[in-house]
């Protein structure tokens, strides 16, 4: 009963935050509401027994997406909180509202009339011993559905290439994103010294623990990316040049090794196989390089395309 009370309150808060993010007149306010919304959704995932997803949502939904939105907003408009011109309810907005209501109701109806659940919990549990990871979610991500994960790590690179194409020709090869300056000894610079060591530990811990308990390459990679972003925003380091070979190697190393492993499976007449005997360390190794690539890619996604030419 109390659990339901908690769930109901949380649902209402989520809806309120989402509603404000959608209806709020000022774009800045909408973005802040979206960040809050991400935090609340992360809590909801805990109530649905999905700690791994909660970690991903806390790191990506509430964290990185919010940072991306804030940065984009700041670059689009000088007066970033100017409200949208109020149009008032006209015929199209009313029709849209009605259509959205109908669609949401249809989805809710479909959800309520779902047949008896027939999940794959048992099948995953039966095969877990051969999967090389005790955490079932990690086993699914890296082994049972490893091909999804491999493609997904390449999706990140595709997005980065897409962002890099948006650079001006003159700026190509230069450092990614704007140059960050802070006052030495100021709060931000101090912040940049304190936070990274903690974050580094947490990130590595999440990857390492991921094979036994919730965590893994994406969650750990996101935290590590956040560490790097903080260091650069605090002006302690500069973002790398996009023409930097070491950077490019770090971006692709994870997917390359994962792909190589997939091809190696051909010897066994299959594709992307983790032999049960070696699955444990192989998965940990793949996760380690994948984490590196994910962390670097995510950070580069946040920095954006190179903006100014390198001055001698």
């Amino acid at each position, binding site marked *: 009963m109390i659990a339901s009370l908690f769930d109901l309150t949380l649902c209402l808060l989520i809806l309120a935050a989402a509603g404000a993010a959608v209806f709020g007149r000022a774009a800045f306010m909408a973005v802040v509401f979206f960040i809050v919304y991400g935090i609340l959704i992360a809590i909801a995932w805990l109530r649905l027994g999905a700690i791994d997803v909660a970690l991903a949502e806390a790191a990506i939904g509430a964290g990185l997406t919010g940072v991306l939105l804030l940065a984009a907003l700041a670059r689009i408009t000088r007066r970033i909180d100017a409200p949208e011109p109020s149009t008032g309810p006209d015929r199209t907005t009313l029709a849209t509202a009605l259509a959205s*209501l109908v669609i949401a109701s249809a989805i809710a109806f479909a959800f309520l009339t779902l047949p008896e659940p027939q999940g794959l919990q048992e099948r995953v549990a039966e095969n877990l011993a051969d999967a090389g990871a005790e955490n079932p979610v990690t086993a699914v991500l890296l082994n049972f559905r490893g091909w999804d994960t491999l493609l997904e790590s390449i999706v990140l690179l595709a997005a980065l290439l897409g962002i890099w194409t948006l650079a001006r020709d003159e700026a190509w090869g230069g450092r990614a994103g704007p140059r960050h300056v802070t006052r030495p000894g100021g709060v931000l610079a101090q912040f940049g010294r304190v936070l990274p060591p903690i974050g580094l530990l947490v990130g590595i811990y999440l990857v390492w623990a991921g094979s036994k308990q919730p965590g893994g390459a994406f969650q750990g990679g996101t935290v590590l990316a956040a560490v790097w972003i903080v260091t650069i925003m605090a002006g302690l380091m500069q973002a790398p040049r996009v023409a930097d070979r070491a950077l490019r190697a770090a971006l692709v190393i994870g997917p390359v090794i994962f792909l190589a492993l997939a091809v190696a499976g051909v010897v066994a007449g299959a594709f992307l196989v983790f032999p049960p005997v070696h699955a444990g360390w192989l998965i940990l190794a793949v996760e380690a390089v994948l984490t590196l690539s994910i962390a670097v890619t995510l950070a580069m996604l946040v920095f954006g395309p190179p903006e100014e030419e390198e001055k001698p």
Partner: protein
Amino acid sequence: MIAPSASLLYGLCGAALIGLGLYGFVVHRRLIRRVLAFNVIGSGIFLLFGASSYRDPAAGADPVPQAMIITGIVVALSATALALALIVAYARLAQSGALPEDAAPGADDEDRP
């Protein structure tokens, strides 16, 4: 009185989020707001998906949808990052945060950098 299960509440919440986001996606003209609405729809779908795989708490949460949702969250982040970078690049050239066909006269004043 039978207390509603967590799955039921969050599933319906997910459906409502999809509706909310859909409305925002269609109504807003400024592209950044549409990207925001896209993310609301996305997490609504994930919530619905997660809730539907937790209908039988005794069996525990199904790990397969969880893995798919994590994949989906990362894919949504990639799409968001690219869309936002495009919006920034477009705003720099066009001095507007909305597409030409959507930019009502006077509406894009605030978007001037």
